């Protein structure tokens, strides 16, 4: 009971790793530091591959382009602004969002500035682009569309928020002329990309319980579009499959996650709040398998990588789980904690750790 005694014991202690017989070996192709890591923040900083170049942004604003195969640094630039969301390399343009409420567009060739637009609040999710429209979602749940040529704001739609929200923000998805976005209120909405007219709204999860904490049902993970299904998952709520055109809920299953999902072989892979990685059948919502050996290891969002599901954890281990039964197939230790979702490109797997070091891994 002393004044400074460690009286705050950990409520959830991470499960220690057990030995297993590996069926796949991993090796490091190259590794490079790309600037400052995310440290304790919950921003969405993950690298983005375009052509055979991988672009990445550090938390304090260093943007660099590396050759995907060899990791050779093509160019790198210090923006000197806190980057919240990004980087998205699409159509020769690099998009990122900042903590002081701006969306920046850089030229993919040399990183020079294209345009910069001030939006309503912090951007800690990845701006998306389709055709000549960039769509960004800020943490005040406002979706803003910006002209990709000159950075002028085309339209913006605001949404009501609960008093207490979960730190983090979902990145919208653009598909077939519509923008799909998930919000802190647990609702999913679709807007027409030209003028932002709302197409449909549907409830992914309903708040329940008495205190503000129990009533949080934020959708922080990005929507995943496969075919005409929009898959969404909310915190302390459900995973749900929505019909892209009407927003009707095809199925929903009670699960709580705030990290993005990925898909493969007809099923969805997601990491829930207690770091269980599970696979859910896209058509029926039934749970395929559920890997609990990584309980409480603050596992990152999963990425489908060849026939495996790749996740990172708090000690810097990359785990490869078999997509079939979720069993641990391989494990490889990189530097420190991995928070960002791994990125698969060709047969390379790129992993960014919290200290801002980018690793390219391949199977032996």
């Amino acid at each position, binding site marked *: 009971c002393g004044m400074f005694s460690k009286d705050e014991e950990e409520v959830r202690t991470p499960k220690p790793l057990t030995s297993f017989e590996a069926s796949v070996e991993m090796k490091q192709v190259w590794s490079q530091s790309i600037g400052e890591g995310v440290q304790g*923040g919950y921003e969405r900083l993950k690298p983005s591959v375009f052509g055979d170049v991988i672009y990445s942004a550090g938390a304090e604003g260093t943007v660099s382009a590396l050759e995907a195969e060899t990791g050779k640094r093509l160019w790198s630039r210090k923006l000197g602004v806190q980057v919240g969301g990004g980087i998205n390399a699409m159509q020769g343009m690099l998009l990122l969002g900042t*903590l002081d409420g701006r969306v920046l567009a850089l030229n993919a060739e040399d990183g020079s500035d294209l345009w910069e637009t001030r939006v309503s609040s912090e951007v800690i999710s990845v701006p998306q682009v389709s055709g000549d429209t960039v769509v960004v979602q800020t943490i*005040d749940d406002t979706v803003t569309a910006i002209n990709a040529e000159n950075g002028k704001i085309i339209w913006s739609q605001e949404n009501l928020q609960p008093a207490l929200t979960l730190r983090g923000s979902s990145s919208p998805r653009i598909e077939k002329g519509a923008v799909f976005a998930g919000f802190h209120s647990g609702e999913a909405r679709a807007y027409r990309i030209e003028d932002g007219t709302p197409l449909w709204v549907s409830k992914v999860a309903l708040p329940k319980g008495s205190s503000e904490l129990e009533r949080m049902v934020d959708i922080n993970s990005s929507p995943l579009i496969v075919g005409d299904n929009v898959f969404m998952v909310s915190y302390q709520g459900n995973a749900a499959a929505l019909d892209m055109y009407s927003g009707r809920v095809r199925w929903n299953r009670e699960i709580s996650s705030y990290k993005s999902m990925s898909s493969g072989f007809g099923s969805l892979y997601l990491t829930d709040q207690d770091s269980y990685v599970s696979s859910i059948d896209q058509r029926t919502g039934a749970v395929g398998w559920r890997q609990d050996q990584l309980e409480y290891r603050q596992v990152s969002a999963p990425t489908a990588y060849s026939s495996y599901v790749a996740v990172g954890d708090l000690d810097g281990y990359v785990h490869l789980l078999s997509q079939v039964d979720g069993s641990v197939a391989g494990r490889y230790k990189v530097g420190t904690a991995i928070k960002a979702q791994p990125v698969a490109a060709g047969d390379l797997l790129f992993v960014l750790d919290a200290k801002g070091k980018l690793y390219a891994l391949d199977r032996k």
Partner: protein
Amino acid sequence: FVVSDIRIDGLQRVSAGTVFNSLPIEVGDDVLSPQVAEAARSLFRTGYFNDIQMGRDGNVLVVSVVERPSISQIKIEGNKAIKTEDLMKGLSSSGLSEGEIFQQATLEAIRLELERQYVSQGRYGARISADVEALPRNRVKLTINVKEGKVATIRHINVVGNTVFPHEEVLDLFELKETGMFSFFGSSDKYSREKLSGDLERLRSYYLDRGYINFNIRSTQVSISPDKQSVFITVNIDEGEKYTINEVNLSGDLIIDEEEARNLVLAKPDQTFSRRIITTTEEILSRRLGNEGYTFANVSGIPTPNHENKTVDLTFFVEPGRRAYVRRINFSGNTKTEDEVLRREMRQMEGASANTENIEQSKVRLERLGFFRQVDVETPPVPGSSDQIDVNYTVEEQPSGSITASVGYSQSDGLLLGGSISQSNFLGTGNNVSIGLNKSDVSQLYNFSFTDPYYTVDGVSRGFGLNYRKYDYKDSDISSYAADTWGGDVRFGYPISETESINFSAGVEGTKITTGKDTPDYITEYLKKEGKQFTNVKATLGWSESELNRGLLPTRGYSQSASLQVTVPGSSVTFYKLNYRAQYFQPLTKSLTARFAGRLGYIAGYGDTSTIPFFEHYYGGGFGSVRGYKDNTLGPKAKEKNGNNFNSIGGDFIFEGTAEILFPLPFVKDQRSLRTSLFLDFGNVFNSSCGTSNGKANPDIEDCYKPSFDQLRYSAGVGLTWITPLGPLTFSLAKALNPKGKDEKQVFQFSLGAPF
């Protein structure tokens, strides 16, 4: 059926009376079954019973009840951050304590109550579970175990959209701070909704006070991390443009003339628009109207911005409302002090037109008495009348004087008996009384003084004092002689303005000196010349002024006093003493105040007296003078006859002062009876003639200087004063910076009941 009697069985704790009260059926009613069901429901609503059966035995209505168990004990485990007593208090405030009736709803209420207490402390991750254990005699034991989890701290506060002021400047406004090195110290990094709304208000007025009239907070996000240990706050703002004032005009019934009102208005054309200037002008104008008796006056400054040229036209609408009158002035909290002691300080009369300045001035006068730790005033309107108010003063009394008693024994002094009472509010009568009696084999000291500050209702004060002191011993700090004194004086004073008063006193004082074996020659020569017996008749004329905000431990204002004391011709020694004392408070920041104080004293003989008697000299050093030096050891010292230590003999000119910084102690809540300060003291005692009777410096005299600045002694240190019922307790830790010659240092000094 007609109910002939009602019988209740199964009653244990609840009294039959309560059951009958809530039973809608009486003896003699003709009762049908729905009424019986209704009766059962109403009984259930009392919440005392688990189960109620309504039966019938002939014409007797039988009510058999099973009482709900009562909670015999509530035990809470696993709680460290919040003490069990606080949790229990929270529980009993929502009706859950030992001895209460146990209901299932109470268990849920307990869980919610405890969770609320933890959330309010920022421990969002806390999880609480409770289990119930039945005990014999229908009692229940509740064990609640708590998993507290970590306290959520604020990881980052971000203001989006501020371009005008740098990020740090804006964050400084916030009471909530990002967690950092020293945040475990206070709770500024714990999120609380009230603190955030206070911060937003400060942010808004910061902008509005600097011309940004269209400033607007678009939205605020408070988000928490999934592990519930970090809170993120984002405030999105639109600054808008900076506006300047175009023209200012007044409208409505001004009561006071336009000219005076106009120069009371702080807002001037083409000055930057500022909301604070508007609110302060509103206050000044309504207070000015209050002085004319319009306490219900209402002044509102309305800005009309015109957006093209970014200017604002300001109009102050003045509604005097009705002239208000005071019906009654009530005092509460004065359990010890008499009502008249408070009422005579009032500048506002009952049955008179209410005057805000007088009401405020009366409050300051009460604080200046020094009897009260806290004085609050409120002026509620009298119900049922549109223009009458009552003035209610609530006071919180504090000890106003000191009581000391001492019994001791030492080989040199023998048995020591002593006691002294000095109260400035004796028995609540407002009179200043001090009685001192000390008796030991070596010395007897008796003194008595009585002053009635309000001998007349207008504040003419009158008092008298008697003292008798007899020493027959060598060892005291002042050079080796003992002075037996006896005397008495009469003193008067009366106010000559709201803050100034003059006082005069006359008294007679007899002194007899007896020397010891070590008495320095300086003294023995003097006594040979002047004889050992002195009888002086003294008259004093003084003037004093005080604008302090409080009687005890003031923090603002200044006070000064000057006095001339003359011994009437015909006394054995004729001299005059000039004294001047002043102190000044200058608030530096919200919590820091600077205090500067100084004292000047000069004695000179007249008539046939050339040298001043040494026992009338000024002595310096120690408390109330230059701390860090032993009491009364500054200034000229004479070598003792044999042996070479020196005793101080004082001087005829004293100059001393102090510069202090008063700061609040971080942990102490009640700052009103405690004062801590960092101080720099300076001063010394000088002598116009250093006893050079035969032309050159007398070898036996040391540290004797003519008044000059470079002979001042300095000391610096920290002091603490604490007002206790036994009297002001003062400590000081001081380092003498430039002791010279025979000055004696004393780092730690302590005193009880000494004037400070």
